[in-house]
């Protein structure tokens, strides 16, 4: 599958390959009369120790275009971004800036060349103000050498206005800002250095729908100003809405670069995964059994008077806006923030879930939304992470049985097709999708009856997404009761047997699969009651 040999000149390379792989839209000759690229990568290869991450990447970015970069996790997107931003240097191939081969000696050199990155995990200083963050490292100074505060605030204000953020106070500490506003600050920081190239790494992964719209408006206005934008995202609808061209990366190679109008969603997906995916949401509902979990009038903090039941073999989707109390509900059932009112019944019997340990004892598992903070201990190995929730079972006589633990990890790597060197690899080195598989493996090792998945496919590529959906089918077929929280409406509608909609910490309605149309769920999310 990945044995194709690249032939032909770099600019057109991949088109022939893509046609074979995709069988989709015919290859278009890219319009030639465009501006010369601001940044171009030619035949880039890069290895880290024995791992060959990039095996031939060609990419170019023109001024005033949004160039989407797509690929599964582990395809090499992050490494490619780091090359463009000067954090790594290629082993082979050249980075060209304004047509001239350039050796970026480090991030400072890339910044000087006008290349800026808006990172996935925003790299701001929480205790400093918006203005300080924007001008960190290049603040305007007076002749005496002291900081010129009035000018700094004024210029920060001007940049934020350019980003259409009149509501952002330049004196506010960043710690008090929402994720969306922090992102605007990060974009403003890039603009303050007169960036001509803006690399956005999954900018919408953590944003709610309304903030996504505003961000896309910002991207459009930057494009109109002539900024070249590299846009990395897993969200198809966004890519089709915003981008001018799309480059697909797979296994460290450029598979194709196409004008956005010339590709279809299905074609794009098969280019990314190298095979056809007939359906994105392959829900196969099986026989539904007894009620496994019932919640009556549950309350804790933001969560108020929530009642529902989940049966064996069923997927209950939970939809709701960000802040509607979905994650809080999950964490109450899982014992992180124990319930202050109401009842939890498991298999018909009332139980108290006062701690995570108690929840694990009741065979409840929770795959959290925040993988890095709550799901994994990333500096540790795959083996140590997978065994973490069942350590006491692996240590019947005080000592952890290393052999059993290693076998458990090896089996998980095989079963979930985790791309890793072995059980001893540190989790932080894995791609997002593979990290998520480690979290799933860790929780399935506890042998749960009730599995709560909180944003199970966030920051996960298309291929791994489908694998996770398949796994959910398999688990429900084995009789698990699954609760799936998701902000992606298509996912909720595609995978759930029933949909519980939350609003303001309460249940706005529970809809059967047949009733759960985008309109009905959307209306319940916004208004707080089902139509």
């Amino acid at each position, binding site marked *: 599958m990945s044995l194709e040999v690249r032939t032909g000149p770099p600019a057109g390379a991949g088109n022939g390959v893509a046609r074979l792989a995709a069988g989709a839209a015919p290859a278009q000759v890219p319009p030639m009369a465009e501006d010369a690229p601001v940044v171009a990568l030619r035949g880039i290869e890069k290895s*880290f*120790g*024995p791992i060959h991450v990039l095996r031939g990447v060609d990419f170019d970015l023109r001024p005033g275009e949004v160039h989407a970069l797509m690929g599964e996790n582990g395809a090499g997107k992050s490494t490619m971004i780091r090359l463009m931003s000067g954090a790594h240097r290629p082993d082979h191939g050249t980075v060209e800036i304004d047509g001239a081969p350039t050796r970026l000696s480090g991030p400072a050199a890339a910044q000087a060349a006008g290349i800026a990155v808006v990172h996935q995990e925003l790299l701001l200083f929480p205790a400093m103000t918006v203005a300080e963050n924007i001008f960190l490292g290049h603040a305007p100074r007076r002749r005496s050498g002291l900081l010129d505060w009035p000018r700094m605030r004024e210029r920060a204000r001007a940049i934020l206005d350019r980003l259409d953020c009149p509501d952002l106070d330049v004196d506010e500490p960043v710690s008090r800002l929402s994720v969306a506003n922090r992102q605007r600050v990060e974009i403003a920081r890039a603009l303050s250095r007169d960036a001509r190239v803006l690399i956005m790494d999954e900018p919408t992964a953590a944003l709610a729908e309304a903030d996504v719209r505003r961000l896309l408006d910002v991207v459009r206005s930057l494009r109109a100003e002539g900024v070249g934008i590299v846009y990395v995202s897993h969200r198809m609808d966004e890519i089709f809405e915003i981008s001018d061209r799309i480059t697909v990366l797979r296994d460290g190679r450029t598979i194709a670069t196409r004008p956005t109008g010339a590709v279809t969603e299905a074609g794009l997906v098969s280019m990314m995964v190298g095979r056809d995916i007939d359906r994105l949401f392959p829900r196969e509902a099986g026989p539904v059994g007894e009620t496994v979990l019932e919640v009556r009038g549950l309350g804790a903090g933001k969560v108020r008077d929530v009642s529902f039941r989940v049966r064996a073999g069923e997927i209950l989707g939970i939809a709701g806006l960000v802040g509607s109390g979905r994650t809080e509900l999950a964490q109450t059932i899982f014992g*992180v923030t124990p319930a202050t009112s109401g009842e939890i019944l498991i298999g018909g019997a009332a139980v108290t879930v006062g*701690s*995570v*340990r108690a*929840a*694990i004892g009741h065979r409840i598992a*929770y795959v*959290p939304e925040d993988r890095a*903070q*709550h*799901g*994994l*201990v*990333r*500096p*540790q190995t795959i083996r*140590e992470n997978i065994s*973490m*929730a069942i*350590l*006491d079972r692996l*240590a019947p006589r*005080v*000592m*952890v*049985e*290393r*052999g*059993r*633990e*290693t*076998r458990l990890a090896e089996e998980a790597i095989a079963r979930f097709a985790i791309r890793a*060197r*072995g*059980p*001893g690899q*540190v989790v932080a080195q894995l791609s997002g999708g593979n990290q998520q598989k480690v979290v799933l493996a*860790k929780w399935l090792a506890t042998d749960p009856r009730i599995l709560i998945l909180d944003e199970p496919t966030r920051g996960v590529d298309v291929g791994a997404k489908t694998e996770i959906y398949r796994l959910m089918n398999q688990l429900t077929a084995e009789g698990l009761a699954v609760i799936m929280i998701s902000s992606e409406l298509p996912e909720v509608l595609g995978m759930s047997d029933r949909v519980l909609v939350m609003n303001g910490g309460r249940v706005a309605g529970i809809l059967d699969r047949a009733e759960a149309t985008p309109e009905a769920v959307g209306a319940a999310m916004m208004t707080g009651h089902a139509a």
Partner: protein
Amino acid sequence: MSPRSPALPAMPPRAVSLRSLLRHETLLALILLAALALLALANDRFLTTANLLNQGRLMTEVGLIAIAMTFVVITGGIDLSVGSILGLCAVLVGVFWKNLELPLPVAMTLSLGVGTLAGLVNGLIITRFRVPPLIATLATLALYRGLAEGISQAKSVRGYPAWFFELGQGSIVGIPTQLWLLLAAALVGIVVLRSTTFGRATYAIGNNEQGAAFSGLPVARTKLLIYAASGFMAGLAALVFVSRVTTTRSDMGTGIELDVITAVVLGGTSIFGGRGFVTGTLLGLCLIQVLKNGLALSGVRGDGTVVIIGAVLIVAVLISNVLKRWNGE
């Protein structure tokens, strides 16, 4: 050194054995050997069995506390109050035995109990009230020392029975008694940290406390036990100390926390938590003691020795960082 485990052969072979060898501990062992060799060449009174065993005697108090401190630092914490707990326990042995006229074994046990309790109080302040360990133990550093001084009324206690001095001055099969104690404590520390669920929880807490809590690991209980153990070891060190110097005074152990932390950090334990080994701490401990003694014997003045130890600490940490980067971490 490594505990026997039937599963060890099942461990996957490391991809590049040379790189895994070049860890901090190996590096430290090499530096230690080099120091031994150089100092032996410089002075013929240094590399003698009698001198080395005597050095073992002198480093035991710091060593005992450093083993527990390794756990504390791996969780991302610190315990500055160990020196004061040592002083408090030392004073209390004297007070329980002389003033309250309790039998000496009972006085020793009670004193150990107080040490453990003092550590437990540290742990409670840290876990219940979420006070950062640095602040919490800085406060109890003053508090426990104040208690020790108040209770002792600046009077020292002497005249302990002869059998008590066996602990700090005697030997068993030619090895100083307290060195056996250190060895036993080290073995327990190594096994607990490497192979038990408790050790796993210790690392997980240091790397990501929330992640550990979301995995159902007993975060608060683990930290509580670790700080209690730190207090207990400080109490144990107090008994050894009193037995070695034959008297109790309230200023005993002042500043020992810095020696302890130096040994732990020199041993490769990350001050940010999450990584570290008891064996590293022991190597760090030996290196410091060897330098102190060897340099003194070679005629280097005390202040010069301190400068050299500081320099070694910085160089070891620097080289270790370079190695880490080279290993691609």
